[in-house]
């Protein structure tokens, strides 16, 4: 139940390079995108160089092999999530996955369970990433439905005290993040899911920051839709996943229309194939899906519990070290309880852009800004933060390097 970070780092070619004139790469920006192991890079290359053809379409050997590879990847994703194969839809990223659900619901006609009207409401939270906020704002605008939200507490947790007022009999959709990409806060889902299901609403989970970092089983969780991005889970860019319960995917109208998603077509109208094909129009991102399969296999081989455990202990270490820096304000849960390995902070009044630039000069990659969660920044009254986020290839040396660089930044900008 544990692994060697040194061995893991050997699997990732990017750690063979150096940064800013020979410095060791300390990559603390996995919350934005993760690095990729050779097995993933090679899986994509092998698809192109050996089996490339359009899936589901040709009656030739390459097309058969490509289809096997692509559908094999779907089976891997399904197993990883504890889902059925035909519940897995490949998208280009989590943003598309979430837009897919929102637009498809918007396409529902009267009588369809997803059809929304002015008397319905959609519930989100103040800590959503823009990708799980704006699509719902737009859906609300198009349908007249009301957008409501849970607020964030002083202690960076969701305020669920008014759950009965927020999720009501009129609520049709509860769209919620599993883990905040800014605060690191992990959301306790049980009460929210129970309340949503009690009133007949569906729960859409933005699992971008959870699926790569811990074991997530959709059947145990009992959510209704779940979205994540391959590129944050050591997978390729250009591939995301939408999972949905099969009985819901059956009723959900399609989103993108075109080839391979139809049953029959005339000049005037079309009917739809079954899921998942109904939601995968056009020639898919085949090599990327295959790469994502390789990525999830890689993660499974190491073990999601071992990865979660590793990140937890690294977060504990980082919290201890960071909170000792005078002038550092941690934005997010101060303890190592129900939180992931994303640590946002400010230092004195040094602008995060300047902090980021300084630590970059030391070979350390962090992220600065509002992290695509602008409303949260306003709630916290901080226009921007610096965020360090950890993954399986990080260790205590990386934390030490960060702490040293932050002290250096204080000196450089005259704050110590």
């Amino acid at each position: 139940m544990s692994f060697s970070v040194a061995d893991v780092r050997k699997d990732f070619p990017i750690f063979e390079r150096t940064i800013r004139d020979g410095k060791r790469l300390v990559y603390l920006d996995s919350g934005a995108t993760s690095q990729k192991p050779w097995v993933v890079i090679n899986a994509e290359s092998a698809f192109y160089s050996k089996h490339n053809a359009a899936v589901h379409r040709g009656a030739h050997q390459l097309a058969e092999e490509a289809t096997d590879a692509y559908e094999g990847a779907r089976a891997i994703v399904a197993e990883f999530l504890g889902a059925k194969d035909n519940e897995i839809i490949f998208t280009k990223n989590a943003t598309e996955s979430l837009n897919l659900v929102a637009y498809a619901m918007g396409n529902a006609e009267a009588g369809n369970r997803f059809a929304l009207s002015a008397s319905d409401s959609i519930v989100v939270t103040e800590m959503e990433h823009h990708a799980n906020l704006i699509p719902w704002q737009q859906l609300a605008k198009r349908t007249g439905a009301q957008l409501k939200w849970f607020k964030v507490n002083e202690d960076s947790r969701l305020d669920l005290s008014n759950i009965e007022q927020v999720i009501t009999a009129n609520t049709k959709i509860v769209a919620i993040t599993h883990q905040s990409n800014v605060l690191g806060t992990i959301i306790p889902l049980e009460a929210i899911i129970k309340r949503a299901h009690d009133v007949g609403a569906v729960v859409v989970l933005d699992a971008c920051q959870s699926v790569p970092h811990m074991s997530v089983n959709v059947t145990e969780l009992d959510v209704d839709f779940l979205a994540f991005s391959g590129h944050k889970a050591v997978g390729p860019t250009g591939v995301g996943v939408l999972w949905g319960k099969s009985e819901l995917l059956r009723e959900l109208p399609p989103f993108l229309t075109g080839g391979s998603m139809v049953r029959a077509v005339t000049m005037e109208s079309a009917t739809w194939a079954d899921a998942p094909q109904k939601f995968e129009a056009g020639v898919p991102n085949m090599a990327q899906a295959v790469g994502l399969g390789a990525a999830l296999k890689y993660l499974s081989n190491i073990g999601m519990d071992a990865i979660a455990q590793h990140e937890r202990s690294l977060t504990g270490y980082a919290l201890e070290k960071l909170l000792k820096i005078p002038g550092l304000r941690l934005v997010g849960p101060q303890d190592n309880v129900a939180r992931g390995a994303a640590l946002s902070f400010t230092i004195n009044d040094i602008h995060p852009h300047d902090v980021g630039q300084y630590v970059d000069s030391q070979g350390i990659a962090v992220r600065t800004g509002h992290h695509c969660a602008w409303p949260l920044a306003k709630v916290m009254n901080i226009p921007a933060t610096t965020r360090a986020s950890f993954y399986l290839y990080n260790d205590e040396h990386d934390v030490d390097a960060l702490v040293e660089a932050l002290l250096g930044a204080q000196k450089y900008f005259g704050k110590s």
Partner: protein
Amino acid sequence: MELDSLYQEVILDHYKHPQHKGLRSGYSAQVHHVNPSCGDEITLNLTVSDGFISSISWDGQGCSISQASVSILGDLLTGKTFSQAEVVVNSFSELMASKGTTSGDPEILEDAVAFAGVSKFPGRVKCALLGWMAFKDAAIQSQGESK
């Protein structure tokens, strides 16, 4: 030659001389199925009397595999009860899902074991199943009505 394991003599025979082709009237159920990936179509009429499948007839267009498959289906299932037919249908579906790992039970499938080779060509499994899926639907319809 691997191709011959797909196009068994029996299959090519049925393709060239399809049985039960041409829709008969007086049916208990009629269904129309399409294979959206290739555009193949089939209409299948099913007549039931006294709990027995007394007639299966069909028309449509499709490849040798789909045409031969429904032709053999007509031979196999005519005269059977629904529960007898179900055994055959299930056995055929299993064979099609086997990816070439089994050769099919000749006791149950008779001539249809010729389709064992098809299961090695994933692109063609849907062709072989087109008529069988249509039959399944027709059986449900006609049983629904007789209740």
